[in-house]
């Protein structure tokens, strides 16, 4: 085992070369992804955007080793995806918070630590730290059904961060929230990502969300799912509310929109 030697490959959080995914169905094979080339640097925020069926969630699941790539090679910090999953190199959050309803906020955040036999005192300290980070310290003894959707999603983010991963995978985590909560949590997420220094791969179908959050926006297109364009936002490291009024921001929103439309997507019958 190579330990902590910073080879160029391990400075990359995610490296995908020629990754493809084929789902066999009764009606024949369906190509969900083909020829995906993607590099995510450590600490970088990358969004995957595209219409439904473009394979953005599939790509995220491949990175998380929840599904296996049919072709190509996928490495996380220089290791195979499976190894990275077992080593807890990433944290993951989904569109639904997916909290265990019988566990308190604290027990939900601490679940990954508990599963990896982290001693109780250490676990409690870490949970308190994470609750503070997502602003839920007062709610630590509540149960998920006593929280609003936005608060549940914050618990899910804290849980994803529990094992201090250097990579955060998020599949439309704010997709089910109202616009106000959503914008608030977007701001929180950029702050958290900056504080923890974790790389983020963020799946979304909202153009403004992708631009606001990301260093790079990866534009994808369906049938077969593939990457068609990559837009550098170059908006710097500070992402606050004033950015939403910034002309540079609007310019990038337009750029991403054009990249999406240029991909000749039949938008009317998507979604």
């Amino acid at each position, binding site marked *: 085992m190579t330990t902590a030697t910073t080879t160029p490959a391990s400075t990359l959080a995610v490296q995908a070369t020629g990754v493809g995914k084929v789902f066999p169905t009764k009606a024949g094979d369906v190509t969900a992804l083909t020829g995906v080339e993607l590099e995510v640097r450590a600490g970088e925020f990358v969004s995957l955007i595209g219409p439904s069926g473009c394979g953005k969630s599939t790509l995220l699941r491949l990175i*998380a080793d929840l599904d296996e790539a049919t072709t190509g090679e996928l490495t996380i910090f220089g290791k195979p995806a499976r190894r990275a999953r077992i080593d*807890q190199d990433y944290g993951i959050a989904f569109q639904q918070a*997916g909290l265990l309803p019988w566990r308190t906020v604290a027990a939900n955040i601490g679940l*990954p630590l508990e*599963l990896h036999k982290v001693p109780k005192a250490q676990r409690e300290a870490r949970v308190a730290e994470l609750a503070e980070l997502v602003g839920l310290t007062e709610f630590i003894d509540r*149960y*998920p059904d006593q929280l*609003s*959707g936005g608060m549940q999603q914050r618990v899910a983010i804290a849980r994803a961060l529990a094992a201090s991963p250097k990579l955060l995978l998020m599949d439309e985590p704010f997709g089910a929230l109202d616009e106000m909560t959503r914008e608030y949590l977007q701001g929180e997420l950029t702050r958290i990502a900056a504080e923890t220094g974790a790389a983020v791969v963020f799946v979304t179908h909202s153009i403004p969300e992708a631009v606001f959050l990301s260093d790079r926006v990866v534009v994808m297109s369906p049938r077969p799912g593939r990457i068609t364009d990559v837009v550098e936002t170059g908006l710097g490291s500070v992402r606050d509310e004033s950015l939403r009024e910034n002309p540079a921001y609007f310019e990038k929103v337009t750029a991403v929109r054009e990249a999406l439309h240029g991909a000749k997507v039949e938008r009317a019958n998507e979604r």
Partner: protein
Amino acid sequence: MSDFARAASPVAARRRTTGRGWTAAAWGALGILAVAVIWELYKFLGPADGVTIGATPGETGSGVMILPRTHDRAMPHIWTMVARLFEPTSGGATPPLVVTVAQAAVVTLGMAAVGWLIGVAVGMLLGLVMQRWKLLEWGLLPWIVVSQIVPLIAFAPVVNAIGNQIDRSGTPWPQWLSVAVIASYLAFFPVAIGVLRGLEAPDRIHVDLMRSYAAGYWATLFRLRLPASVPHLLPALRLAAANAVLGAVVAEVSIGMRGGIGRMLIQLAGQASSDPAAPWGPMFGSIVLGLIAAGSVALIGFGLKNYRRGEATA
């Protein structure tokens, strides 16, 4: 902020739940009262010999009876039944009927409880292996369903005979154990089905999450599948308890074991023409038994109430 408003609401929700508890009790009492009123009303209004269609005059038992007889031998008054509970069981200096019924009920309850425990253990094991290996589910589930079609009356003497054989060959096998085994035969079924459905209840996202934590089968079982199965398990346990009582009563009768409430019911029913109110004693007794059995399971449910929380949708 709406976050806080939502967080405050559970208190109100709990208050509503307690209120509902009292309403439920009131409705329950009203239900019992309604049965008593209907009984007495029919007894008052209905013809003493019932209503029979197509009877040949002079021939007893011919025709189809569409309304039951209402005379005192067929339908004793409710108050007669209650008064009978406090009279001696079989005349003379014998203890009051209610005491004899209670003693018999305890015997049956003990056997039903053992049967319930065996049934729950077997049912859980079956549910676990069926969830773990799909192939076993396909292989076992049809047999489990078929097992419940075999009538208990046919099955009970076989268990008893096997028990006697074991007993004769040296290993002690008391008769009550046969009754418990027969009771467990009815009890395991809902548990096996409930556990199987319960273990498969977790959402895809929860299973994915456990996979992302590299949690193995056992960790996933104890942290996710078992807790998530509780809402399915509790009704199954309650059904199993009711089935165990039923099974124990029927088993007592069909293998001829003395001391339990089933045997007592048959005995007193045989003397019903001279003492019509007496069989109602063990009948009430078995109703109370069923309630105690179901109530004990409700207590288990109370202890597990955190596992019955639903996650509020965003």
